[in-house]
């Protein structure tokens, strides 16, 4: 009797019900309303049991037991409300924050679309000045996305000055330097500028001026989702455009020129900003997709890389890599780096090493081998055929990949051997991003000076 009384005094019924309720709510198919209903049932049951003379803790235990296995109950709920397991992004009007955000995103998207059109008013069109648009296209849209984050994160004057300053600087570099038409350095600059600008977006996105590791990781996650959603929106835009042109051509109106000059460019520029808003709004409501893709493709790319390495070694072609193969290799390595990046970004740092971590380690290891091979090939080409901007850019990129991948490998080995936590790996990942960006800036700004435009 003593023991029961003791347990009775230490048993906090409210706290226990609250814990139970939180556990119930963890099942996606059970909503707050249902939890309310189950809770009121539980309380009725507890009251009835206590009236028969049981103590609170005993009544609580029996009542919970009678509710049954929550897994089974939840699957019944899921069967009745089949839509519930598919989380929906509801554009609810009661969420004022979203509407406000969308309005600022909308104006900036409009501004980006107009920015693209301004030169055409002066007779500078994509048809007549192809290179001007190729050089400047990322400047029409990415600064506006950065501006969106300046507004959203309330970075104030410093934010506006940074975005304007960097964009103006990039504009001057891309347009005022005496570029030779279609030179290797200008192509390289066009390719690397978006990366540098994307970092500008990132600095604004973090809202902490890139100072905290957690926010940097958030930006990596944001980037992955952004890429996926941009592709989806682009697909939708393509279908919309095809319908617009097609439907009007049925009734004898040719809208192809309109689609080409207005819908596609304005849509693409606007989408850059809108997707940024969308990814942030859906955050938390919908599962991140990039890590899922990373999980699916990690084993497949590991297989591909191993098969490729073996084939190269067996056929002896490893030391005679041609230009196209080298470009392909580098692209694949960048993709592998992306896979690693997203696998890391979605991993719960608290968990112990699992099979997937070993798989990651194998992937990083094979990627390192492939990178060494590419490095060998590119240095061979430089020694044999001399220095060109493209070769130096490739050399630099492979060197950076080598350092980055070695870092991943080192931290993964330490992690699976329990020598250090996963946080060290995350820090390596976020800390290395500025290196990629610096290289991009060097290619954009220094290469033309070094190689005579």
């Amino acid at each position: 009797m003593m023991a029961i009384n003791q347990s009775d005094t230490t048993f906090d019924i409210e706290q226990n019900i609250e814990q139970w309720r939180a556990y119930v709510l963890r099942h996606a198919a059970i909503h707050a309303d249902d939890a309310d209903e189950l809770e009121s049932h539980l309380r009725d049951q507890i009251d009835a049991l206590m009236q028969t003379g049981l103590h609170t803790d005993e009544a609580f235990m029996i009542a919970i037991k009678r509710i049954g296995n929550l897994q089974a109950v939840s699957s019944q709920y899921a069967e009745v409300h089949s839509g519930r397991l598919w989380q929906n992004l509801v554009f609810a009007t009661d969420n004022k924050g979203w509407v406000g955000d969308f309005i600022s995103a909308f104006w900036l998207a409009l501004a980006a679309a107009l920015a693209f059109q301004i030169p055409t008013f002066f007779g500078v069109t994509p048809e007549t000045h192809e290179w001007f648009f190729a050089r400047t296209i990322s400047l029409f849209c990415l600064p506006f996305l950065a501006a969106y984050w300046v507004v959203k994160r309330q970075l104030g004057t410093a934010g506006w000055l940074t975005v304007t300053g960097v964009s103006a600087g990039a504009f001057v570099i891309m347009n005022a330097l005496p570029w030779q038409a279609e030179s290797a350095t200008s192509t390289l600059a066009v390719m690397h500028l978006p990366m540098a600008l994307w970092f500008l977006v990132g600095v604004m996105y973090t809202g902490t001026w890139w100072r905290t590791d957690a926010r940097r990781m958030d930006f990596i996650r944001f980037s992955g989702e952004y890429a996926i959603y941009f592709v989806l929106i682009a697909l939708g835009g393509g279908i919309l455009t095809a319908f617009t042109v097609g439907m009007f051509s049925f009734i004898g109106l040719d809208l192809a020129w309109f689609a080409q000059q207005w819908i596609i460019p304005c849509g693409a520029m606007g989408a850059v900003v809108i997707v940024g808003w969308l990814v942030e709004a859906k955050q938390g409501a919908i599962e991140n997709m990039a890590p899922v893709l990373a999980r699916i493709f990690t084993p497949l790319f590991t297989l591909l890389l191993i098969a490729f390495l073996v084939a190269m070694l067996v056929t002896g072609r490893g030391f005679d890599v041609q230009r196209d193969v080298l470009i392909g290799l580098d692209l694949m390595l960048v993709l592998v780096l992306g896979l690693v990046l997203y696998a890391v970004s979605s991993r719960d740092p608290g968990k112990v090493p699992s099979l997937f971590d070993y798989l990651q380690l194998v992937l990083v290891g094979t990627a390192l081998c492939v990178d060494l091979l590419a490095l060998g090939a590119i240095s061979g080409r430089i020694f044999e055929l001399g220095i060109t901007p493209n070769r130096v850019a490739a050399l630099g990129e492979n060197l950076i990949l080598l350092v980055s991948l070695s870092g991943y490998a080192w931290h993964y080995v330490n992690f699976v051997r329990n020598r250090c936590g996963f946080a060290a790996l995350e820090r390596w990942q976020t800390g290395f991003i500025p290196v990629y960006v610096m290289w991009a800036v060097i290619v954009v700004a220094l290469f033309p000076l070094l190689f005579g435009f």
Partner: protein
Amino acid sequence: MQLSKDLMAASSTPLVLGVIAEGETYGYEIVKRVEALSKGALNWTDGMMYPLLHRLEHQQYLTSRWRVGDSGRKRKYYAITEEGLKVLREQQQQWHVINDALNQIWRDLKRSSNDGYQPV
């Protein structure tokens, strides 16, 4: 006595509809009423009844509303609809048919065993 799962599943809809047809009520009361009606033989896993209630509501046999009862506790009350009453009557007829058939066979079995027939 332990009732078979299939039998419990088949009888749950008419039982729930029937109890609610007696008057607007809530989940806990339904469980208690069914338990009393079956003299304790039908004891459902309590949690399982709510998805069933929701399904019947989806099928528009029931309507529900949140109400604060006499005890001051917020509960979800269910009431039967016209549609639900129609289904209940259909179910009633079906169960009558089965009930009659079973009764018939129990009687026949008893009679044949009285005739000296021994089922193998």
